[in-house]
C-alpha cells in the first residue's frame, strides 16, 4: 500500500453531480443524528467528517475542499446545542488539508485512504478541542487512547464508505 508521489499530470480529478453533492452530506448528517438513538457507540464514527475527506480527496481543489468542509461542518453544528462554528472550523481545516494532500499523493487505494483518514481525524479532533476549549470554554478532556481508537474506527469505516462513494464519481 504505497503512498506514492504523483505529478500533477498523472492525478485524476473528479467531480460530482449536484444531487449527489447535496444528498450525500445530508444523508450522512441524518444517519449521524439518527443511528446513535439505538446504537450509542456509533457516536465515535463521524460520517460528515468522512464525507468531507472523501470530497476533498476526490476533487483535489483546495477552495472547493475548504468550502465543502465549512458547509458540512456548519450543518453539523446546527444539530448540536453548541455555538455554530466548532465543527465548521475543524472541517474547513480538514477539507483544505485533505484536498492539498490529494493533489500530491495517490489516494485511490485503500491503504492510503486508511492512513489519510487516520491522520485527518486526529487533526479534526485536535482543532475541535482547541476551539472548544479556547473560544467556547467547554470543559473537554483530551485522551490519546480515546482519540486514537476513534481514529482507527473512522479509518476503517472510511475504507468501506469511500469504496461505496466511488460509484458516484465522474471524471472532470
Amino acid at each position, binding site marked *: 500500500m504505497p503512498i506514492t508521489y504523483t505529478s500533477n499530470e498523472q492525478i485524476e480529478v473528479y467531480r460530482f453531480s449536484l444531487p449527489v453533492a447535496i444528498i450525500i452530506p*445530508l444523508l450522512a*448528517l*441524518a444517519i*449521524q*443524528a*439518527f443511528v*446513535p*438513538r*439505538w446504537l*450509542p457507540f456509533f*457516536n*465515535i464514527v463521524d460520517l*460528515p467528517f468522512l464525507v468531507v475527506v472523501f470530497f476533498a480527496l476526490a476533487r483535489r481543489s*483546495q*477552495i472547493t475542499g*475548504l*468550502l465543502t468542509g*465549512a458547509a458540512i461542518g*456548519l*450543518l*453539523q453544528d*446546527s*444539530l*448540536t*446545542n*453548541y*455555538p*455554530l*462554528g*466548532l*465543527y*465548521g*472550523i475543524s472541517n*474547513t*481545516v480538514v477539507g*483544505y488539508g485533505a484536498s492539498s494532500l490529494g493533489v500530491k499523493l495517490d489516494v485511490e487505494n485503500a491503504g492510503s485512504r486508511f492512513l489519510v483518514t487516520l491522520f485527518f481525524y486526529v487533526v479534526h479532533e485536535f482543532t*475541535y478541542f482547541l*476551539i*472548544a476549549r479556547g*473560544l*467556547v*470554554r*467547554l*470543559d*473537554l*478532556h483530551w485522551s490519546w487512547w480515546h482519540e486514537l481508537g476513534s481514529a482507527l474506527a473512522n479509518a476503517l469505516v472510511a475504507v468501506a464508505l469511500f469504496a461505496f462513494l466511488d460509484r458516484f464519481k465522474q471524471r472532470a
Partner: protein
Amino acid sequence: MENLITRYRNVTILVAVLFAQVLGLAVQVKRTSENESTRLIRVWTNDTISPLEKGTVLVHMSLRDLWNNYVNLRGVRQENKQLKDQIQQLRIEQARLSEDATQAHRLQALLGFKEQFVSQTVAAQVIGTSGSEQSRSVYIDKGSRDGLKQDMAVITGDGVVGKVLRVFSGTSQVLLINDQTSGVGAILEKSRLQGVLRGTANGDVVLEKVMSDEPVQPGDKVLTSGGDQIFPKGLPVGSVTRVAPGAELFYKIDVKPTADLSRLEEVLVVTEVKDREPSVADSGPPMRAADILAARLPTVPDKPATDPTKPLTAAPTTPGAQPTSPPASHPTGTAATPGAQNSAAPSSVSSTAQLKSANGSAEPKPVKPAVAQPNASVPAVILKSPKPANLTPSPASSSSGTQTAPAQEQPQGPPQ
C-alpha cells in the same frame, strides 16, 4: 500586494473562511440571547433532517407494532396472568399509599404548604440525537405547534431527562441533564442538602455545591429541588454512586440518572405546572392531625389502668376545662386555647382504640389517659385553627365516655 494575494489565493481564502467562522463563533459566545439570529441555519437543517428521522421512526414503530401485536404473541397468556396478579398486589399497595397521601395532603393543608404539581404534559417520541460525542441532546417529534416552549421540563416515568432547549414548528431539541452545559437544582432526599446537578465532558452526572457538613452515602436518592424554576419539585433525578471531598467545603458527588439517557424512546414534556394550596375539602373525610399522628405512633403496651373504673374521665372533655399541663411547655410554643389543648389527649386515645378495633380486635381495650402523654406535641396543628370554638367535643363522647371519631372537633375552613 495584489500579486501576493493571487499567488497565495487558496491560503488567503482559507484564512478568510476561518476568520469569518471564528468571528461568528465569538459573536455567538458573547451574545446572551443566542437564539434570535443564529436560528435560521438550525431551522433549515432541522427541517431537512427531521422528516427523514420522523419517517424512519414511523416505519420502525409500525413494523415493531406489527410484530408485537400480531406475530410475536407467544407467552402472552402467561404474561397476562402474571400481570393480573401484579395488578392485585398493586391495588393493595395503592390503597395503602392512597391513605398515606391523603393524610400527607391533609397535613399540608393544615400547615398551609403550597404544593407544586404537574398538571399537563405532552407525550413525545425521540426521533434523533445531535450526532456528536460532545453535545448531549436529542430531538423529539413535538414542537411549537403542540404547545411546547423553551425551558419546559422533559421527564420519563423513571425521572428527569432534560429541558427543551430549542423549539421548531414540528420538532424540539432537548438538552439532556448529562450535557456539560445543563444544570438542574437538586436536593438529596435523606439529608435535604441542596446542590446543582451538572453533566461532565464524558457524559457523567455530578452533583456540585453540596456542603460537606452532613454525611452523604452512596445510594441516596437525588430529587429536583424546584429552585431552578424549570423542573417541578420532588421529581426523581438519580442516585448517588460515589462521594468524594471536593474543592473547599463542598462534596463532589457522582450521580447515576434514574432515566436511561442513552436509550430514550418516549418522553413527557411538562407543559404546565401549577402551584396550589391544598384544601382540606379535597382530601376526603376530615380527620384531625392528632388522630393521624396517633395512628402512626407505636401503641403503648396494655397494662392495667390506675383506675380502671374511670378510664376516660381523667382527661377533661369540657370546653372550659383547664389544661393539665401549662401551655408554655408545648414544644411548638404556639399559644394554646384551653379547649384545643384538652382535646388532644382523648382524641389520640380514641384513634388508637379505633385502629385496634379495625385490625380485628372485637372488644375495645380500656383506654388510659396516660397514653396521651407521649403525644403532647400532637395538637400543634390544631392550635393554629382559626376557629377554636369548633373544637368542642361531641356530647356523645363526653356523656357516654366512649371515644368515637370526633367529627365535630375538625378545624373548619381553610388553614391560615
